[in-house]
């Protein structure tokens, strides 16, 4: 069982047929999401529709906003008022959200953003699968900032990683992005969902000192300051400007630099914990495929077929795209003669793989940007061509 997966108690539970987007909504509700603000966009709309139906029953709030900028603004506001909150969109809306992703990074407000990717740029390919927002997730908002992005490759993954997205967001007080492709968002699979008791649900660190002692952005040693809700009696200031430990705007060099470093290190100190992947047949693999999302599904089939033909190939299915899992990838690069990175974009994760490669091995790519998924046969063919 991989480290990122929920360890379920052995109790007989019913299998249910769920769509990826439905699983996401179920995961959000189970993680404690009680606020959703969104704007309709294909292929993410189902998440919004389900939340509109289910949040009132759960005692939460749903609102359809006037655009995606407003959606994330409202989600951040709700989070500051103490609610776990989320929004979901696709590429064009994700572009609009970048302004507030930066705000959430800077002001350290937990929130979850689902981007069901479509081919871009611009309106692009609204109903076709794509993985072309990987770099937008990393660097879409301006300025140096840390980011966490997760990539599910099955309906169950989408459920599980949505729960984990909330956990990471609360733990590190940072926006967390779920990068999903249309295949995973729209396909239906039989899944057995854990109960709430089986899940570890994390909450943001709350202040334990009385309000008069509270210093909102002081580092308690974990890198993550404690966070009260507006109305709790801890009156403090929140801004997107560089701020001192009290939250007040500053341009002092001895306050600016420690802040940006803390924003990075609060996550980077845990890099070892943030190595989430599924590995198949990697022990003796001469060629290892590094894939994520729906491409990892095709890659798994291709690995099985290649093994039948006697080729020693394996697969590493990435669950975290950002921060880039350097440790895991370096291990793969060191233990393989060749690495293949198939992606539904022009080469976004392969670029990162090459960056950390440092001539350890040969990195091959397989890129498809015509709006159709990569087929197992295409990966198998490439494997046969590059097999040493």
């Amino acid at each position, binding site marked *: 069982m991989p480290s990122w997966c929920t360890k379920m108690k052995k109790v007989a539970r019913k299998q249910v047929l769920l769509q990826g987007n439905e699983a996401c909504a179920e995961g959000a509700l189970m993680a404690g999401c*009680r*606020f959703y*603000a969104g704007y309709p966009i294909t292929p993410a709309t189902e998440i919004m529709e389900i939340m509109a139906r289910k949040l*009132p*029953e759960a*005692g939460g*709030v749903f*609102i359809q*906003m*006037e*655009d995606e*900028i*407003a*959606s994330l*603004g*409202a*989600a*951040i*506001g*709700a*989070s*500051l*008022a*103490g*609610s776990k*909150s989320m929004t979901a969109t696709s590429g064009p809306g994700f572009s609009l959200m970048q*302004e*507030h992703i930066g*705000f959430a990074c800077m002001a350290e407000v937990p929130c979850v953003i689902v981007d069901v990717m479509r081919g871009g740029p611009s309106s692009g390919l609204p109903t076709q699968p794509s993985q072309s927002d990987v770099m937008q997730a990393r660097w879409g908002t301006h300025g140096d900032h840390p980011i966490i992005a997760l990539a599910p490759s099955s309906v169950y993954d989408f459920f599980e990683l949505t729960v984990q997205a909330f956990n990471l967001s609360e733990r590190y007080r940072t926006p967390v992005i779920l990068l999903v492709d249309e295949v995973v968002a729209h396909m239906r699979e039989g899944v057995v969902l854990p109960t709430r008791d089986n899940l570890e649900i994390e909450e943001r660190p709350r202040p334990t000192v009385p309000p008069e002692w509270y210093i909102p952005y002081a580092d308690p040693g974990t890198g993550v300051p404690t966070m009260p*809700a*507006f*109305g*709790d*009696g801890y*009156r*403090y*200031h*929140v*801004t*997107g*400007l560089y701020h001192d430990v*009290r939250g*007040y*705007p500053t341009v002092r060099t001895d306050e600016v630099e420690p802040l940006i470093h803390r924003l990075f290190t609060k996550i980077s100190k845990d890099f070892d914990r943030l190595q989430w992947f599924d590995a198949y047949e990697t022990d003796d693999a001469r060629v290892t495929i590094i894939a994520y999302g729906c491409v990892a599904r095709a890659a798994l089939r291709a690995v099985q077929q290649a093994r039948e033909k006697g080729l020693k190939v394996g697969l590493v299915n990435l669950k975290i795209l950002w921060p880039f899992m350097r440790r895991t990838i370096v291990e793969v690069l060191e233990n393989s003669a060749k690495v293949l990175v198939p992606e539904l974009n022009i080469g976004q994760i392969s670029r990162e793989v090459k960056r950390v490669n440092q001539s350890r091995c040969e990195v091959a790519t397989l890129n498809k940007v015509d709006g159709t998924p990569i087929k197992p046969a295409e990966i198998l063919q490439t494997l046969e061509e590059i097999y040493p």
Partner: protein
Amino acid sequence: MREPTHLVHKYLRSSKRFPHIWCSGCGIGIFMQALIRVIDREGYGKDDIVLISGIGCSGRLPVYVDFNTLHTTHGRALTFATGIKLANPRLKVITVMGDGDAVAIGGNHFIHAARRNVEITSFILNNNVYGMTGGQTSPTTPYGAITTSSPYGNLEPDFDICRLAEAAGAVFVARSTVYHTRLLERLIGQALQKKGFAMVEVVSHCVIHAGHFLKLKSPVEMMKWQKDNSVTVEKAKQLSDAELEGKLVIGVLADRERPNYHEQYHRLHGEKSKA
């Protein structure tokens, strides 16, 4: 002097490094003082108030006062305010925006917040110019005005913020200038009591960047201009359109009842949880 001293100690943050960033003679301080007086008089609890701003000179207001304060992005204060009010309806949510902030970059959020009618009390400090960035044309800069971004004269007609708010559905719409402080305080009090989206346009002055195109040289002259160019709603009813040309109509311009969003939502939510 007892009252101001008492209010300063009670409402300004002792931990914040003063002085404030506003220029001498700026009108924002007059508004801030009026807001604090009304909040004190009406007895709102400091823990229950969330004061939210966008970007610009007005955006810096919340940091000085001892409430839950939030300095958001340019034009988007109302989106954060919407999320806060819906997540915790017990909170008194107040936004402070500038003219460029609220009706240029934030124009879409503004009309939809008014239409949606979430209970947010919003104040738009209208100084007819982008002050912080150095005096560029805003949507309320007069036609023909010479600014740093319209060096040959502004070709755009200006927005009437109150008419915009009224047309978009705000349940309370009012205007005052910072000269008319007693009226301003009365309007702030009425707006805070309104159970829906309330908007007060606070006509202010930027002596540094707007004085020159209004041909006014000092804060005193600018405030005299506010006095001389304002007519009350009552008096305006007796004047013709031609006589009202270039005048500021001050007072309550709209005050009506309409169900607000969050009360309807939470009523629905109550029914849903029983079902």
